[in-house]
């Protein structure tokens, strides 16, 4: 019998019951809850007279709607306020732990989970949010669910699932200085496409992945969903174990020793069989910039906007033409010639301490360009913010002309007041460049944190490798 993949191991460890057709009932170790996708689920519980199966397995935080300016006045928008208040009421009623808006531990749900040790290696983790794939960076099986499934997990601590196929994405070699985890995942998405991972769980392997910090690994797994895969995984190694040592929800004492020993088995066996394997050479990856309205439309910073006329598939060609009109770009235009209006550094993809350090290193001692109307830095959590302030990063950003904000999802999806106006162009460290994502008519280019910082200083895209 061949060995098991990491996904096989995680899956097998959580199956409670399985039907002949492969439909399985699997146990969920950690359920993360936020304000946008949970109110209807709590309503469902109330209507059916049900209670959460295991209240302690849930952790809630408001992140999508929260203001990133001073919170002393609460939330101005009454609709957003009601949604955030509804989460607090529901958590109080059903006995679920919530980090409230003014709690220093509040932040983006996918930043606080690992930060608190609330999502650990070997767990199954779900949340009513597609970027739950982030937690796979610690060797946890983590994926996004809809609101009906949020209700199902609340009521039963289980989900009905069918196992996905195994895809290995192997990235060997050493990255060039200036190239980061974001560039790796954008290069992967450009290789396999936004539907390439449909029906698969991705496991990211290879020397380039092992060389990444936990923060970098989270960036990679975060965008597995942008490659179509609900879950992305990275094997546990000493980097993982060191990251979790001493975190508030991490095991302590004898439990810690037992947990760490068990976690060391969370890797694919040498003879494991994958349904599909993709290989990339890390040394060939350059800083990436998306040019269209799908994350797969990405080129290297030294490239040009592609010409739809050269695309042979008529459906794709038509989509490209539409995207170029929406983005206000011309085929053949150099990426470095694209001028920007706004810069956003934040989101569950790139708002961790390492991301802020990388951006601050580029910004230090410089000023943002005159054409940049707004440059935002939104830390991923209250604790990331404190850490950055302890290192003086806030001062670096503010001196350069950036705004230093409170934690939340912010301009990644513009559910709060932070947004693009129609026609505005943004260098963004977030994960989606869909039409209207950052605001009605807004134009998004996805990049890594150092690239976003460099674009803020130059006023247009520039190759960050020239600065390192």
């Amino acid at each position: 019998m061949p060995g098991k993949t990491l996904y096989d191991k995680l899956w097998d460890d959580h199956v409670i019951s399985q039907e002949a057709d492969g439909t399985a009932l699997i146990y969920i170790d950690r359920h993360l809850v936020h304000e946008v996708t949970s109110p209807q689920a709590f309503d469902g519980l109330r209507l059916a007279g049900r209670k959460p199966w295991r209240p302690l397995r849930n952790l809630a935080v408001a992140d999508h709607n929260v203001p990133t300016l001073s919170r002393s006045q609460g939330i101005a928008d009454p609709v957003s306020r009601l949604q955030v208040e509804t989460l607090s009421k529901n958590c109080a009623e059903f006995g679920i732990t919530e980090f409230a808006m003014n709690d220093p531990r509040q932040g983006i749900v996918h930043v606080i989970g690992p930060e608190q040790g609330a999502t650990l290696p070997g767990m199954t983790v779900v949340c009513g949010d597609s970027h739950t794939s982030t937690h796979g960076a610690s060797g946890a099986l983590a994926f996004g669910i809809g609101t009906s499934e949020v209700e199902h997990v609340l009521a039963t601590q289980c989900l009905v699932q069918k196992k996905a196929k195994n895809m290995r994405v192997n990235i060997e070699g050493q990255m060039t200085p200036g190239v980061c985890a974001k560039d790796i995942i954008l290069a992967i998405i450009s290789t396999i496409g936004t539907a390439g991972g449909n029906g698969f769980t991705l496991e990211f392997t290879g020397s380039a992945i092992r060389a990444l910090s936990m923060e970098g690994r989270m960036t990679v797994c975060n965008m597995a969903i942008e490659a179509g895969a609900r879950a992305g995984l990275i094997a546990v190694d000493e980097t993982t174990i060191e990251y979790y040592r001493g975190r508030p929800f991490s095991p302590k004492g004898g439990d810690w020793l037992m947990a760490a020993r068990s976690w060391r088995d969370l890797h694919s066996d040498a003879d494991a069989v994958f349904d599909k394997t993709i290989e990339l050479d890390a040394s060939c990856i350059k800083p990436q910039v998306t040019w269209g309205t799908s994350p797969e439309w990405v080129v290297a910073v030294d490239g040009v906007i592609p010409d739809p006329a050269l695309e042979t598939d008529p459906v794709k060609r038509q989509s490209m033409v539409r995207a170029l009109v929406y983005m206000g770009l011309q085929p053949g235009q150099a990426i470095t010639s694209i001028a920007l209006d706004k810069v956003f550094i934040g989101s569950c993809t790139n708002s961790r301490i390492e991301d802020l350090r990388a951006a601050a290193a580029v910004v230090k001692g410089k000023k943002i360009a005159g054409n940049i109307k707004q440059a935002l830095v939104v830390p991923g959590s209250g604790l990331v913010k404190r850490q950055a302030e302890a290192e003086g990063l806030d001062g670096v950003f503010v001196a350069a002309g950036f705004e230093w904000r409170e934690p939340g999802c912010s301009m990644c999806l513009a559910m709060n007041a932070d947004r693009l106006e129609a026609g505005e162009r943004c260098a963004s460290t977030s994960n989606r460049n869909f039409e209207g994502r950052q605001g009605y008519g807004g134009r998004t280019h996805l990049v890594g944190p150092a690239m976003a910082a460099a674009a803020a200083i130059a006023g247009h895209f520039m190759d960050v490798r020239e600065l390192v």
Partner: protein
Amino acid sequence: MHAFTALTGLVAPLDRANVDTDAIIPKQFLKSIKRTGFGPYLFDEWRYLDRGEPDMACSGRPVNPDFVLNQPHYQGAKILLARENFGCGSSREHAPWALVDYGFRVIIAPSFADIFYNNCFKNGLLPIVLDSVVVAALFQEIVPGYRLTVALAEQTITTPGGLEIPFAVDEARKHRLLHGLDDIALTLQYAEKIKAYELARAKRAPWLFVNGQL
């Protein structure tokens, strides 16, 4: 959960690939704490020429005459025909809620994003995967008033010309959708097995259980 058995309905062609859930229902409408009322804002940024806001009355808004759902002969459509990777992006179940609230009961495409596909079944909305060549042929064939008959039990789509197109669907999902079964009630039948699993897991991985508490 709502059941789906069979229907004959008008087909609207949405000739785009990678239709994301942000396009299906933009973020500002996700502030609602209800499950209903999303239909008027379905495809809001494509359907209207102004910027939509929650609770806005849509009757007086300027509509985009070029958008397919605004064309008179597609009014009342129950089946949506689309291209690859429909429903990609965010996990928001508001997307299927909006499609159902508008009146759609079937979506046909060459592929769907996994989370969206799963969410459809929870809401009586049937996503059907057909080969891209077959989907392309249907796009070619559509004329005003074009209707298809979809039968879930038989797993067939019948064209006006009498052509029967088979489609695949997972048995467990089909069963739940045909009978409109409550997933949670079904799972709670396994309550004893779940408890037994938890006890075994607490022995294997005690660190997962705070102070021994499940």
